[in-house]
């Protein structure tokens, strides 16, 4: 595997693992990270989160990754664990670009 791809996968896995652990600890879920699939729905079905959980998730992600998520844009990133990971990685990239 090319080193660039390996690095990309590691970055994704690292962010995914941090987001998953955060969801489990902040929301006191009685499951292990292996029991969560990346495309599990967060609301309605799947993990069956509610609007209070949504606020908890946003606050915890902002704190963990030092990013701003709740800026009035669409909250569609709250649909699955993978969509949370996408958004965290996107925001980190934007911040990095702005700094440079």
């Amino acid at each position, binding site marked *: 595997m090319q080193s660039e791809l390996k690095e990309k996968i590691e970055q*994704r896995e690292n962010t995914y693992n941090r987001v998953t652990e955060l969801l489990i600890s902040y929301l006191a879920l009685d499951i*292990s990270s292996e029991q969560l*699939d990346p*495309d*599990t729905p967060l609301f309605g079905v799947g993990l069956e989160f509610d609007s209070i959980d949504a606020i908890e998730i946003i606050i915890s992600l902002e704190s963990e990754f030092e990013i701003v998520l709740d800026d009035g844009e669409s909250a569609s990133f709250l649909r*699955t664990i993978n969509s949370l990971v996408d958004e965290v990685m996107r925001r980190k990239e934007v911040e990095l670009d702005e700094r440079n």
Partner: protein
Amino acid sequence: MKGTEVGYNAIRNSVAFTEESDLCCLQLTGKQAFDVFDTVCPCDVFLQDGQMKYTLLLNEDGTPFADIYVCRKGEDAYLLGYGPNVDTLIDWITEHSAENTDFSIIDLSKTYAPLALDGPYAWELCAEVLGPDILGLPYLGMKVSDEVLVFRAGQTGEYGYHLLVPTDQKNAWLEKLHTAGSAFEMAHANEAARAQCALENFFFDINREGQYGLTPFELQLQWRLSAQKAAYPGAEAIRTRRQSGWTRRLTCFSTPDPVKVDTAVVCDDEVVGHILAIGYSPVRGDYVGKALLRRPYWHAGLDVFQVQGCPLKTLSPPAVDNLSWNISPYNDSFHTREKENGS
């Protein structure tokens, strides 16, 4: 094909109507009706009145036998399911519920016709034909309205309702829906249109990826199981797989060109998986699907793959922005949508 596109567009933009010939509808009666659910389902079946739950029925090898909703309405238990035909489903439940004796299974398809409404404004049409109370029905909720059993659930990513109408009133209800539906630009959606919407939203399709002998782990359906429940059909296989782990996972992808199902997915000249499902997405203008990829290539957000020489990238579903996500029955209306959208 054009009919499919018309139905698809109605699901994504207004409301579409379907006669669901593939939906099995059962009612379980008797003191042990809910014990039967508990015996055969791999999830915890605690249901409040009017609540539905999404789960599976599993074969002994842990692969899905049926894709089901279970539901409680008062003392009545309902099961809506896709996969086997209704007789096979009844036989399977009976065979796996031998310890429960005080229950009966009623095949509702003999007395009810299953219809479905899907689309960002399905709620508004439902309210028009069934009354405004329907607006208060939560997702995965069920109620009886005017002799119609209404289940709020769908597999398109948009607002969805399964309506079981009494068979002897079916034509009258069809007439009512068509009359009211014309104001909503309602169109008929065939199975292909609904399947494409399900694919874009990564809903499980038992007749598609469910035919590859995969377990809920590879299918990303662990949320349909209870991590704690010990006894149900397939439990031993699930326990074994959970302990041994799994090395492949179903992953959503997009590609600009049509490719065939079962084609190999390649990365750096190495086969890393196969296409299990693919379909053209009119909203996106490319093809989306599900590929079974092996670790560590199974992540979303990678644009390093080829299939039949075409580029393929993995993505986080849903592959489309569902209009329903931004539409509220309390603030929006089909009739004022253009004004609200500023167009």
